[in-house]
Each structure stands twice: as structure tokens, then as C-alpha cells.
């Protein structure tokens, strides 16, 4: 029996899952990411370093801040420039606001309808009006933080190499902090809701990989750590991670050299950075008996924990801003620069070679979904094998739910 799941809705981008069952056994399964390529790495060559953040922002309509920040950090590394503490704080605020936007949309719009046996969030009205209203409140607050600093919530314009072009006033940042603090209960409710979603059991022996920091829930840079003992610096990335083309997919696939597949994203961050969560988020998570785990479906819950954490850390960072030293001049020089950040969906890598007039001569971008590609495929195989007797409809929905739980961005993965 051949099953072709060629309509995978409620994810970003285009993909299909093709599988073949023979004699009660899974014979073959392929995740085909057929999102048409746009060739960002190809046409970035010849562009100037200061255009790159605005260009790479357009890789994604969900995580532009991540692509911009990663590119900016890579350029700064190439130029040997170190941004001020204030700039780092603001970049983290923006990153957290985007993690919030992305996780909220994923949990409420992409993932949730499955658990209510509905096709879409629109069908959740009017019965789940309370949940939708909560989502809109939280999403609005997250968007307003991105636009407070970036000028607009999508494709912000103030982020440049060296810092920011303009900052809001102290009165505005204080007001924003207050607004975020007032949403703590809504964030906790979201976590409660996520903890009540019944997920299929699924073992997963993946190597979870995320950036970690000392005493900090790492987002923009850190040590590349894994649950199987990886512990390396950002610039060592290319010696450990191998990206390769896949004949049936437009997205490339990344593995850890001599080890195999990996899983990045919220669950990886929780598995590796649980102790660095803010006390309230940690406690709320422990209260529902969650401290991480292997089942990829737990990624939904991990995102909910991060929502509680991110609202709070954003508010703390906002309160601590001086709003001074937000830009410093730098010298353009020939060089090579790379950087990693934790995008909402996991570890994101940018690499650039730059000539002495600041023109890009080589670019490489590896997105969270490229990191997760092989593991998602392996998880799908396991899920189908363990549920092989289920009716076709049910099996298809389970596969889709698993794809959605990974929160892939297929557009990003092809780019």
C-alpha cells in the first residue's frame, strides 16, 4: 500500500510524506520538501554586507529577526567588532519577542486544531473563543515588542551591523514591560492548556542540540551543546556538522559528522538549558511534571514553557535598558564570519566570506529545519511502524501531527 500525504497544511512551506507499506511492514518513507528554491546563498554573492540583513530577513515571514541577527553577528565577527552590552540586550529582547510570536502561532493556529479534531483555528470559533482571545492578547503583545524596537513587527528596519539606528523612549519601554508582566497569567494558562493535550507516545533517541550559556537561557550565540556530549564553540560548527543534498528534496540535510541525525528547537533547548530558565517558568514546568524528554511531540509543551519564560525575560531586559550606546562604528575588512542563534524553531547558522570592500563572495545558511530534516524522517518511520495497523486516515493525521510538532519551516529550509 502506498500513501502519499501531499497536502501538509498548517506548517510554513511545502512538503509531502510518501510511504509504502508492504506485508504489514514499512518498506520506505520519504519526506519530500518540494518548496521551490529561491537561491539566497547564490544571489547574496555580489551583494554588500549592509544589505544582507534586509535581504536574509525575507527568507522567512516568521523568523526574520533570527536571520537578521545571525547575519549581523556573522558580519561583526568577520570585522572583529564587538557590540555593546546594551545592543546585545536589545537583540535578545527582539529575539524573545519573535520566539513568542512564532511559538504562539504554532501552538494555537498550527498545532491546536488537531487536538480538537478540527481543520483550522477558524473552526475553533465560537466554542474555543476564550483560547482564541487569549492567543490574540498574547500575540499582540509579542508583536508590539518587535515593532517597538524594529519599527514594524515583520521585517524590522532598525537592526544593522553595529547596533540599532533608533531606539524607543524610556517611557515606551517601561510601558511595554508593564504590559508583558500583566500577561503572566495568560502565559501560564497557555502552558496548562499545552500540558492537557494528549500526544501519541513516541520514542526518539535523537541527539538534541542547542546553544547553551552560563547562567543564561542562550539565544544569540553560546556553546553548541548536545545531549550526547557535544560541547563546541560557534566557529567550530563546520568541523562537526555536515550538510548534504538529498535527491528527492530541495532542502539539504544536516547531520553531525560520524554520528547522524540531530534534533534542534524548543525541546532541545529545554533538554539542555532547563536549569537556566527563569525560576517562575522552571517552577511552572515542574508543577506539570515536565523537565524535557525525548518524544518529539513534547516540542509543543517545550514551546509553552518557553512562552512563560520569554514573556518574563523580555520584561526584565526591558526594565534594565539604559537606551544608550546603541550603535558603534566599525571598520569593514576582508574576512570570514559565521554565527549561530537559536531561532524559534532551533539552531540557525550563517556563514559569509567578505572581500575588502564589504562585498559577499560566499554565503552559507543552515536553518533549524535542515538540522531537523533527517530526525523528522526517522521519527516518521518510527511512528508509522508503531502504528501500522491504524486506519489510513488516522495514520495520515498522526504523521501530519508529528510534522507539525517539529514546527518545521520548509520555506526556510530550502531558501
Amino acid at each position, binding site marked *: 500500500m502506498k500513501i502519499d500525504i501531499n497536502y501538509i497544511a*498548517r506548517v510554513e512551506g511545502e512538503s509531502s510524506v510518501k510511504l509504502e507499506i508492504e506485508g504489514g511492514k514499512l518498506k520506505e518513507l520519504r519526506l519530500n520538501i518540494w518548496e521551490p528554491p529561491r*537561491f539566497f546563498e*547564490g544571489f547574496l554573492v555580489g*551583494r554588500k554586507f549592509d544589505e544582507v540583513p*534586509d535581504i536574509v530577513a525575507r527568507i522567512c515571514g516568521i523568523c526574520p529577526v533570527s536571520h537578521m541577527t545571525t547575519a549581523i553577528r556573522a558580519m561583526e565577527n568577520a570585522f572583529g567588532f564587538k557590540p555593546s552590552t546594551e545592543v546585545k540586550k536589545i537583540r535578545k529582547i527582539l529575539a524573545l519577542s519573535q520566539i513568542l510570536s512564532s511559538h504562539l502561532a504554532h501552538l494555537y493556529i498550527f498545532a491546536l486544531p488537531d487536538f480538537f479534531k478540527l481543520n483550522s483555528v477558524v473552526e475553533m470559533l465560537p466554542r474555543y473563543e476564550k483560547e482564541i482571545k487569549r492567543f490574540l492578547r498574547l500575540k499582540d503583545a509579542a508583536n508590539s515588542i518587535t515593532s517597538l524596537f524594529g519599527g514594524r513587527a515583520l521585517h524590522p528596519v532598525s537592526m544593522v551591523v553595529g547596533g540599532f539606528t533608533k531606539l524607543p523612549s524610556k517611557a515606551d519601554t517601561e510601558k511595554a514591560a508593564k504590559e508583558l508582566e500583566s500577561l503572566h497569567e495568560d502565559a501560564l494558562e497557555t502552558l496548562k492548556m499545552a500540558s492537557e493535550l494528549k500526544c501519541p507516545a513516541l520514542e526518539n533517541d535523537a541527539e538534541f542540540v542547542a546553544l547553551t550559556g552560563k547562567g543564561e537561557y542562550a539565544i544569540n550565540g553560546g556553546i553548541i551543546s548536545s545531549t550526547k556530549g557535544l560541547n563546541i564553540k560557534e566557529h567550530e560548527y563546520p568541523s562537526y556538522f555536515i550538510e548534504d*543534498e538529498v535527491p528527492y528534496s530541495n532542502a539539504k540535510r544536516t547531520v553531525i559528522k560520524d554520528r547522524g541525525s540531530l534534533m534542534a528547537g524548543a525541546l532541545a533547548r529545554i533538554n539542555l538549558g532547563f536549569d537556566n530558565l527563569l525560576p517562575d517558568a522552571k517552577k511552572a514546568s515542574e508543577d506539570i511534571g515536565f523537565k524535557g524528554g525525548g518524544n518529539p511531540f513534547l516540542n509543543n509543551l517545550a514551546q509553552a514553557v518557553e512562552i512563560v519564560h520569554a514573556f518574563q525575560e523580555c520584561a526584565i531586559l526591558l526594565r534594565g535598558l539604559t537606551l544608550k550606546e546603541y550603535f558603534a562604528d566599525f571598520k569593514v575588512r576582508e574576512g570570514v564570519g559565521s554565527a549561530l542563534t537559536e531561532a524559534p524553531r532551533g539552531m540557525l547558522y550563517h556563514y559569509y566570506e567578505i572581500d575588502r570592500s564589504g562585498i559577499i563572495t560566499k554565503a552559507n545558511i543552515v536553518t533549524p529545519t535542515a538540522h531537523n530534516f533527517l530526525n523528522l524522517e526517522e521519527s516518521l518511520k518510527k511512528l508509522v511502524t508503531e502504528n501500522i495497523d491504524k486506519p489510513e486516515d488516522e495514520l495520515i493525521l498522526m504523521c501530519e501531527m508529528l510534522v507539525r510538532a517539529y514546527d518545521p519551516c520548509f520555506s526556510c529550509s530550502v531558501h
Partner: protein
Amino acid sequence: MGCSYFFAYVHKHVPEVLASFDFVFIKMLSRKGIPDGPFDIALVEGTITEAWQADELKIIRGQSKKLFAIGSCAVIGGIPAIKATAPELEVEKRVYKNLSSIHSIKPHAVDAYVKVDGYIRGCPPAERDLYEALTSVLTGRKPDFPQHSVCIECKLKGNLCVLIADNMPCMGPVTNAGCGALCPSMNRACYSCFGPMKQANGPALAKKFKAMGISRDDIIRKFTEFGADTIEFRKAVEMVYED
């Protein structure tokens, strides 16, 4: 690439929109599958980069009373159109070793293939223009989209001109309004993410940039970041090459 996700950003008017429209197809929102036409409105996002997309677009056009292009990719070709500023095979080779399964065609805006009833410009698209498109259909009138330049928005806001006063290479004079003069208001030059205003005088601005001491290649890059596939900006690039 996220223009349908843009609905998650304009949710302030979601109840009103839902009261007036049935969303029959947004893959990002619903698992319902692909419906049969006819449709009252089609909002088309994205640059056309593979032949099957053009085929599908023509089918959608045939089934839709009104078709709007939404977002700079669909309206003007946008960022993906940068690809065609270099020999395309060369660009593709930089990304893939094996090109046998890559079927990309020259990137174009939606109106290279079908008639378009209106343009919701911008990257991200202007919220106001999206509502304007929807309400124009509801009320049966022609949509009223801004057709002036970003300069006018700066004047209305009382911004100091970053081109004249700060010597920044601002694309505002040739860029279609709709963003509310966002970049100049944030102390930086407009980079034309809304694309050219209709009949903008690209060559005149390119000359101004040259007089400001900006290099030929930098001027070309300004006009090819978002507008590589537009006549207005191509004219500026040609002028710079001939000069």
C-alpha cells in the same frame, strides 16, 4: 513565504473579516484541502519561480472574479528576482552540486503571467492596502491604493529629509508609499521594499546618487534589491551602465 502568515499579524480586524468572508483556501491555516472554484477573491503571494506555478496561477485566474497580488514578491518579483541579475545557472550552481532535479525558471511577478486587479504592495504588505482590497470588493468599487512616493509620507510626518539633510542614499523618491515612511523615521535610508512607484524616474535618482559620490556598483545594488524585475528600476540600472 509568509504573506499568508501575515494574517496572523493583522488579526485586529479578524472578526470583521470573518463576518464578511469565507476563507476557502489558506493552506497555512486549514487542513481542509484544495477547493473547487469559482472564487470571489484570490490573493496571490510569492514570486513565480517554477513553471507549474504559472500554470496553477492561470487556473486560479480563470476561477476568480478578482485577483490581487499581495506582497512585493508577487507584486514586483521582490528579493527572489535578484537571482536574475546574474547568469542564473551560475547562481544555481553556487547552491546545488546536482541541478538535475532543480526546475527553476526566471523569477517574475504575478502579472507577468495573468491580469491582476490590484496590488497590495510591500514586504510585509501594507495592512491598510489589504483591507482596502477586501472592502473594495465588498462595496463594489475600485480599490484606492496609494500611488505617490515615500517622500510624500515623510513630508506628512514632518520628517527631516535623510537624502538632502543627511546625505543618505534614500530610495524614497522613487518608492511607492504605504509603509508610512518607516525607514527615514528610524534614521535610515529607504531601501524600497515597496518597490517602484508607477512611472518613477529611476535614472534621475541614480544621477543624484552618482553626484553624491556613490559608486556605480552600489547604485546598481540599490535599484536591484527589490526592483530588479521592474521597468522603472531597470531603466536606472541601464543608465548607470551606459554612463
